[in-house]
């Protein structure tokens, strides 16, 4: 859930907008009741449009503040089925070597069907994501990469958003299947993350089909 009223200041702004909107509606209604209705309809449509625009992919870009020691780099890795892919492991190993002091946080969004989400049937999805995460962290550890991980929200963008707020990454690595087979690419998750956060967003393509046949 993304909340439009996060503070008293936001509520106060909403109050001012309400005063302006209702003043318009009342004046229009005094001229003609149907004009008042039309103004109400227009303002409602406008409000919905602004809300959708603010929470959509074109939301204002957020500044991600660097926290921790200046020399330390933080990399957020977001992946689901591709979390154990060789290309991803290679990209992480490369960063571990190049960046020196680096911390990794691996987030596996608990992907679920819409029906199960609506009925709060999420335990199986979270358990599956946890299993993938455990296997991946074990694989990272086996090659000497220090990482911690957690299961994220079922919406990959919200999962990234949550992790950004607590982890403050300097780079976000998003792993997906190749174009045409990736649901995340179809939904524009990588592009949306690039627009939303002012840190480097790297896209790693993992072809699980090729790896399975090797």
């Amino acid at each position: 859930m993304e909340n439009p009223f996060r503070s008293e200041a936001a509520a106060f702004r909403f109050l001012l907008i309400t005063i302006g909107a209702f003043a318009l509606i009342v004046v229009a209604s005094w001229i003609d009741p149907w004009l008042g209705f039309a103004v109400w309809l227009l303002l409602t449509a406008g409000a919905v449009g602004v809300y959708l625009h603010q929470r959509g992919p074109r939301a204002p870009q957020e500044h991600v503040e660097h926290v921790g020691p200046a020399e330390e780099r933080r990399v957020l890795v977001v992946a689901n089925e591709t979390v154990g892919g060789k290309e991803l492991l290679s990209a992480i190993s490369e960063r571990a070597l190049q960046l020196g002091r680096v911390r990794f946080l691996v987030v596996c969004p608990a992907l679920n069907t819409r029906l199960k989400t609506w009925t709060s049937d999420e335990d199986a999805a979270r358990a599956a994501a946890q299993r993938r995460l455990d296997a991946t962290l074990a694989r990272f550890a086996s090659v000497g990469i220090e990482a911690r991980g957690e299961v994220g929200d079922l919406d990959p963008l919200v999962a990234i958003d949550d992790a950004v707020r607590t982890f403050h990454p300097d780079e976000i690595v998003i792993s997906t299947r190749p174009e045409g087979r990736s649901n995340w690419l179809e939904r524009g998750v990588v592009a949306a993350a690039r627009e939303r956060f002012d840190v480097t967003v790297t896209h790693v393509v993992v072809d699980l089909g090729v790896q399975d046949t090797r």
Partner: protein
Amino acid sequence: MTSHAETVHEHHGPPAAHRSSRVDARVLGMLLFIGSEVMLFGSFFTVYFFVRVVNPDAPSEWPPPPYELPVFVAGINTAILVTSSFTMHWALQSIKRGQRAAFLAGMVLTFVMGLAFLLTQVIEYLHVGFNTGDGAFASVFFGLTGLHGAHVAIGLTLLGMVIIRGFRGHFSPEHHHGVELPGIYWHFVDIMWIVVYSTVYLL
């Protein structure tokens, strides 16, 4: 590099409330409460519009004869309540800047204006010329404005607590959640009144 891995195993079910919401848990609680309040007011508005739509005199004559509403007095009352939101905002901005005197002045002014609104509404009830049992319009008028009045009373209780705590030295630029939450609530009460006043008195 060291070999180290840790995972979060304890958690089951959806993410904790403060994670996916991008908002502090206490603020989220207040907002969910306000969401339920909006639904409550929504039910009262539904009744109001139903009564209005089925009334044969509407829309040429509204409120239906012989009812008359004190639009001007209620307008002054609206101005008082709207002003109290400004002083509430000023009070919060003041405590954020560490200006304690301005914070306390803002809170006291907000409280006094809220109280003035409530007392004026009580006086309006005494002089409006009809009572709750005088037909559907009268019932819904008292129901809607009375529901709002109850919320003002709750808001005044919250503001009173903030004032008492403020005079006892509580709150600072770093810790002012106890002001922020009643502030959100107070603005909500104000917003609802604008909707009630516009709908019941003006339209």
